[in-house]
């Protein structure tokens, strides 16, 4: 769920862009450092961006009954790290705006904040927290992916509510409105994205544990489990 071109007032467009910029800059610095140590990462990031784009364009209508898309933030955050996801997500959102007219240029900052910053960082934080609580690997992944998706959508609703507080009920009523309307598609989607990501990681663990280990995503023990 991206905010469309022109929908946000100018002050909000600028505000969210300013809020997103340091995260993207930090992500780029992390990436640059990684590329210096390991030049292959230049290609990896480009290909990972394409992967994230294609993933977010995968229609899940057969699964949720509506024509909705997974965000892929959970999967991406765990695979590539939350810092890298900010620039990756920024490029994906720019491409979605230009190739699909999904989202927009003035709303790019706001969309980056919800999809490429809050989503991945929340997903990664929840993943680490769940791991620290010694929850089973599948549960960690499920929580990370579904909560990452859900918090993305909550953030978007907050952004809309901040921009358009209800003339009667104020910010809270407006948030309830936006959150309520989009909940119809977003809650089933978050749950199915959680399940899907678990299936993906199970399949990955069987397909090629070596590459996951190289990424330091999961320890060898988890892959075998």
């Amino acid at each position, binding site marked *: 769920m991206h905010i469309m071109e022109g929908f946000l007032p100018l002050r909000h467009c600028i505000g969210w862009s300013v809020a997103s910029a340091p995260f993207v800059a930090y992500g780029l610095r992390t990436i640059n450092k990684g590329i210096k140590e390991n030049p292959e990462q230049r290609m990896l990031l480009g290909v990972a961006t394409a992967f994230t784009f294609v993933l977010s364009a995968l229609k899940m209508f057969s699964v949720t009954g509506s024509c909705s898309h997974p965000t892929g933030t959970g999967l991406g955050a765990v695979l590539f790290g939350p810092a890298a996801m900010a620039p990756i997500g920024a490029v994906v959102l720019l491409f979605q705006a230009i190739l699909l007219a999904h989202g927009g240029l003035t709303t790019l900052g706001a969309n980056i904040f919800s999809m490429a910053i809050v989503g991945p960082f929340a997903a990664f934080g929840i993943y680490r927290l769940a791991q620290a609580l010694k929850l089973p690997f599948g549960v960690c992944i499920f929580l990370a992916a579904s909560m990452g998706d859900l918090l993305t959508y909550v953030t978007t609703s907050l952004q809309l509510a901040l921009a358009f507080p209800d003339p009667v009920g104020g910010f809270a009523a407006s948030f309830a409105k936006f959150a309520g309307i989009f909940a119809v598609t977003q809650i089933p989607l978050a749950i199915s994205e959680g399940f899907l990501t678990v299936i993906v990681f199970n*399949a990955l663990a*069987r*397909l*090629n544990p070596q590459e996951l280990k190289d990424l330091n995503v999961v320890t060898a023990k988890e892959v075998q489990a």
Partner: protein
Amino acid sequence: MKQQTTDPILEVQAVRFRYPDGSVGLDGCSLAIQRGSRTALLGANGAGKSTLFLHLNGILRPMSGAVLFEGLPVDYGRQGLHHLRSRVGLVFQNPDRQLFSARVREDISFGPLNLGLDAGTVRNRVEEALLAVGMTACADKPVHNLSFGQKKRVCIAGVLAMQAELAQILDRLHAEGMTVIIATHDMDYAYQWADVLAIMDTGICAASWDAAQLPAYLDQLEGFGVGVPRVAEMHKALAACGLFGPDLPAVRSHSELLDAIAKMAAVGSRP
């Protein structure tokens, strides 16, 4: 163009199909596939071979015209597709695009499990299919360690394992059990392998010949730009040279031709 009316198991009748981007896939294509036959589809890229295949399995639905399976129009409801796909399997060009499980056995079991069969039946079918393609020894290897040819066999096993009459088909494989259609650019291989050669050209089936009668159509074949079997060309040249009599039966493979020449050499050296 030959019309066969004996016992077509699959038939497309004047099928038209246009892709969402506007490009024409099939433009009134008609073709009947005989039960138990081996048909090779030949044609340039974009001639409609893949589009035709996707119609035979019910993945694409004709915009006009009809697809018939065992004489009846295909039912595109859930049950109908279930039935069709348990009888008509598709193997794709590139095995890497259709294998998505870590282990060979797991991948082969994908189709039968989707059919809703119980675990025991699936297990049996997987083993039968592995045996049929000669991959039992490799069944425990991870898929990404297999060679291209081995992956291809796993793909075939995956399709075999879905077939409703698998046991009978495998028994009769060398008789006339399974109807097979392939799309290829390799005219030499097609000529050697197929009973029927069907030529696709810009969305229609332009010709369909019995392989045994192909030598008579060599000139026509050249016009389609799909190539001419080298063996047939060579055979014709040698016949013109007087090495073979004019009424010799068609020789369809390189090794058959070599044998025929060796026989001639033996005859020639005897007197």
